[in-house]
């Protein structure tokens, strides 16, 4: 049975397949100005790759660190509760709890 939801997508894919090579050239200038192993083209490619990777690396590292710090802080808070349940002695009159040292 033909899946009516997938059919337009498959048609679009088949229609776009022959044009994939022309999409990869990105613009007429880049497609026609440089040869297959041009140093300028290679330089631009590496620079673009670096500039694409930089924000993901930076923001990923910062977000990962923030996630780690929050998880660690949450673990500490939970551990403090457990510790108080086992080791906390009765506070003297007039003092309002806390961790005894």
């Amino acid at each position, binding site marked *: 049975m033909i899946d009516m939801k997938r059919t337009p997508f498959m048609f679009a894919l088949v229609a776009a397949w022959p044009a994939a090579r022309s999409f990869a050239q990105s613009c007429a200038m880049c497609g026609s100005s440089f040869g297959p192993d041009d*140093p300028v083209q*290679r330089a631009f490619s590496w*620079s*673009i790759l*670096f500039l694409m990777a*930089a924000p993901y690396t930076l923001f990923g590292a910062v977000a990962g660190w923030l996630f780690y*710090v929050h998880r660690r802080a949450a673990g500490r808070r939970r551990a403090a509760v457990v510790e108080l349940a086992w080791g906390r002695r009765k506070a003297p009159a007039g003092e309002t709890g806390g*961790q*005894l*040292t």
Partner: protein
Amino acid sequence: MRRHVVPLPPADAPPVSNTRLAMIVLITGESMLFAGLIGMYLVFRLSARTWPPPDQPRLPLGLTALNSAVLLASAFPLTRALGAMRRGEAADGVARRVELTALLGTVFLAIQGAEWARLVRHGLTLGSGTYGGSFYVLIGCHALHVLAAVTWLAVVAVLARRGAFTRVRHAALEMCALYWYFVCGLWAVLFPLVYLY
């Protein structure tokens, strides 16, 4: 017998303070600025058939390597100053270590300034094609950041000598240290890229 009760930190206290978060945002923004400049340098460097160009002077590698060691070593007394402040040691010792860091930063800038003057005399200027332009823009931008950080260190040293920081309140020193670590770490990337590669 009187018992010593240590108050627990409030349960809703954020694990990362607002000042530290602001500093991280600033450093991330600065990193993106330098990522753009490094991208520019990579385009010029990789597209050139010979680098440096044959008619341009070579960069002084030995002196700059020594200068890099001075800058990276400057992070050590600052780390010790932070540790001393957290342990609640005397403000005088903390201030002395911060002053030493600022002095090492100034030495780095002075050596780099002398190196630049020599390069200009040898004909490498901002207008010497992509080689001179990319070198002065990238390294000059870092030098400006070092200058700002040295000024900040000097202000922090004065404040520390006046006893403005305590064991629990020394955010200005911590933020200044974070920025200085960023400046040193950035040089650890720029030096191999510009002088060795």
